[in-house]
């Protein structure tokens, strides 16, 4: 799958490969020795965050998981 920053697609692939392995083999099994993908992630983010700014994509200041809802919430 392509990155929104054309130059970042390769960096994204490398990171995705590392992440998918760590996710299935370590994270889901509760083994959290540390994240082996930190460096790859940093390189990928440098590239993609730059592309996002250049394209004026408005991802800033948006609350994670959307606005809070008050009491009634169906997630864990």
């Amino acid at each position, binding site marked *: 799958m392509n990155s929104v920053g054309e130059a970042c697609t390769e960096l994204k692939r490398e990171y995705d490969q590392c992440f998918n392995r760590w996710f*299935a083999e370590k994270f*889901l099994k509760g083994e959290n020795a540390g994240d082996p993908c930190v460096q790859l992630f940093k390189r990928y983010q440098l590239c993609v965050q730059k592309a996002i700014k250049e394209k004026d994509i408005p991802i800033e200041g948006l609350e994670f*998981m959307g606005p809070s809802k008050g009491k009634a919430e*169906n997630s864990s």
Partner: protein
Amino acid sequence: GSTCEAEAGSGGARPVPEVAAASRVPHGGGPAPAAGGALARVSGAGRREPMGKHCASLGVLRGPWDQVFAAFWQRYPNPYSKHVLTEDIVHREVTADQKLLSRRLLTKTNRMPRWAERFFPANVAHSVYILEDSIVDPQNRTMTTYTWNINHARLMVVEERCVYCVNPENSSWTEVKREAWVSSSLFGVSRAIQEFGLARFKSNVTKSTKGFEYVLAKLQGEAPSKTLVETAKEATEKAKETALAATEKAKDLASKAATKKKQYV
């Protein structure tokens, strides 16, 4: 309520009762949910009308939770995702309590019916940017997602919340609870048009009646009473005030309809 899937019973999905809808508050503030019912607004006559559209459904994925969560990150591309142009992780962290928080940015093609392209030509050229926030909790074997569009928002906002968990009837399967809301601030614009239209009509009725009385009195050979001449002047003044108030109210409604945050086409 309606099921979120396009064909009835697809993927074993079934609609979920409207009860879940009461917990939601729309973006940018708005009327609080009416007790025990779907999101509603109260018109002057006390009628309740639902704002926007809602759907909910319960579905199943035929795989164990850990496989499903892993597949979630490898979803794109697939034969059904030709409309998805790019995919990027723009934030990721593991919390102190071992949950994975991620934010994924997707760009998708903006496919609109031809009539919508004619009404909203400015939107045609722009792809849609969508953010998908997610929390993966391997200890509880659940995943929660929240997905929404961050542009074209003045035209329409679509939000979706999903909760993935182990299927209670078959632990090698995964249950998906899905809820979505579709809303448009153009709804508020059409309310403003109606309010302004009614206010202007009422002021015209006043002018129409007074004018009629005036001419009638003249026909009856009477000089229109001093009172009628006076009230004619008053009517013109009152009409000006009413029109001004209606314009202010319409502006107010229209600006309330646009959300507070900066919006992109």
